[in-house]
């Protein structure tokens, strides 16, 4: 569904991604593991076209993103949802306005219909009574869940999760993991989860990829990850 081919990216002469090759298959939940600051979020931003690579390609359903016009890129993005590490909720808008923004901008739904969709999505993340609250009135876990409701508001076929459990206590983190798992099973969407939280990775991942030193060092099932003798993987797993 999504292919990343020989992707390179540098910032101020510091090479962050050094030839990433990765295939993301339809309907799977791929977890990209890696230490903090190794370029996982940068990779995720390339997948949705927020960053342009120095060289290499991100190919979505056979079309390289670099060949798309701005309008075509926006059409592709409408099939994506993204949960940011900080949730990135619009702080001047209520929860309802945050979740309904995509619907307001891209559909002709009436106010009543939008409200129904928002209620349904907030219900999926277990936050039915927060519509009129502002992000500043929510806890970290609630913000992530609202971010998730916003990400699924347009029924995307791919959801990108950037460190979904970072900064959350283990109980709330487990709630988020369950939500990712449930959405994956109920909506049959493709998920890409970037994390360094091994507990979360093993809970939600169908396949694991390890990003280290700017390139993908390992791709395989969670069982293969645990049993491999690859020294880079063993070194990473020894710190969990």
């Amino acid at each position, binding site marked *: 569904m999504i292919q990343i081919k020989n992707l390179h990216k540098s910032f101020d002469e510091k090479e962050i991604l050094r030839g990433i090759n990765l295939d993301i298959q339809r309907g799977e939940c791929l977890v990209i593991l890696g230490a903090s600051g190794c370029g996982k979020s940068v990779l995720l931003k390339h997948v949705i076209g927020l960053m342009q690579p120095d060289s290499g390609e991100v190919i979505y359903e056979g079309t390289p993103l670099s060949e798309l016009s701005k309008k075509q890129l926006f059409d592709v993005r409408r099939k994506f949802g*993204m949960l*940011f590490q900080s949730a990135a909720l619009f702080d001047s808008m209520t929860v309802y306005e945050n979740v309904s923004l*995509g619907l307001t901008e891209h559909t002709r739904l009436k106010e009543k219909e939008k409200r129904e969709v928002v209620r349904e999505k907030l219900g999926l993340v277990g936050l039915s009574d927060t519509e009129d609250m502002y992000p500043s009135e929510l806890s970290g876990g609630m913000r992530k869940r609202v971010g998730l409701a916003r990400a699924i508001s347009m029924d995307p076929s791919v959801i990108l999760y950037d460190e979904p459990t970072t900064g959350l206590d283990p109980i709330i983190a487990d709630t988020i993991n369950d939500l990712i798992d449930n959405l994956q099973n109920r909506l049959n969407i493709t998920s890409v989860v970037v994390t360094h939280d091994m507990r979360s990775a093993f809970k939600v991942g169908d396949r694991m990829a390890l990003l280290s030193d700017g390139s993908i060092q390992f791709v395989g099932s969670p069982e293969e990850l645990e049993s491999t003798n690859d020294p880079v993987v063993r070194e990473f797993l020894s710190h969990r």
Partner: protein
Amino acid sequence: MFIKYLGRITSSLFSDLGGIFMMMVGVIRSLPGQFRHSRLISDQMLLMGVNSLPLIILTSLFVGAVAAWQAAYQMQGYVPLRYLGTMVSKAVFIELAPVLTALVVAGRVGAAIAAELGTMRVTEQIDAMETMAIDPVGYLVTPRIISGLIMLPVLVMFADVIAILGSMVVAVFLVNIEPETFLNGMKSFFKVADVFSGLIKALVFGVIISSLGCFHGFNTRGGAQGVGLSTTRAVVTSSVMILIGDYIIATMLFSVK
């Protein structure tokens, strides 16, 4: 060392000019879709215009007052004081009201725009908007520029009236000129074109303030320090561009024979 510094400044200047040009292209492209953003535009008009009004009234009152007092001081012994209304009104309509209103709005609104968009940039809210296939220029920048374009002339009209009232108070109570004399002085050399020239300036200043506020906010890097830096840059560049723009418009609108 100096050459390197000069090169860096020049490169940064051209990069900024290119960035502003591209942003304005985006603004023009997004204009047809703005009917859906009428609420955003009216919110910004409220923020830029209505909420700025108390400050504009206060500053204009004193601008008019000091203009009358200084003009009276400079005229005494050379020009009959019955022309005080003429001098003050021309100065207010053509120069003082548009320029000082614009500088006040740049400090208040330009800074607020840069801080708001800068915070949205560093907290990934603008990235989030892009991932939702919403054009941030069309959603955040264009409504602010439209509001600036509309509200600055409105504020300048208020400033014109209040400044003239302020100057009249000083003329009548402190310089001891009859109100009729002051008004007759104003009327005898009044040109509608003078008022329009001030409003044309206000239109341009409205675009300068909102576009530079948006540009610097959009290009914020780093955290809180970056937001502070963008806010300062927005106010400084807007103020400088208002004064340069004022000179350019003046030379275009008024010929000196």
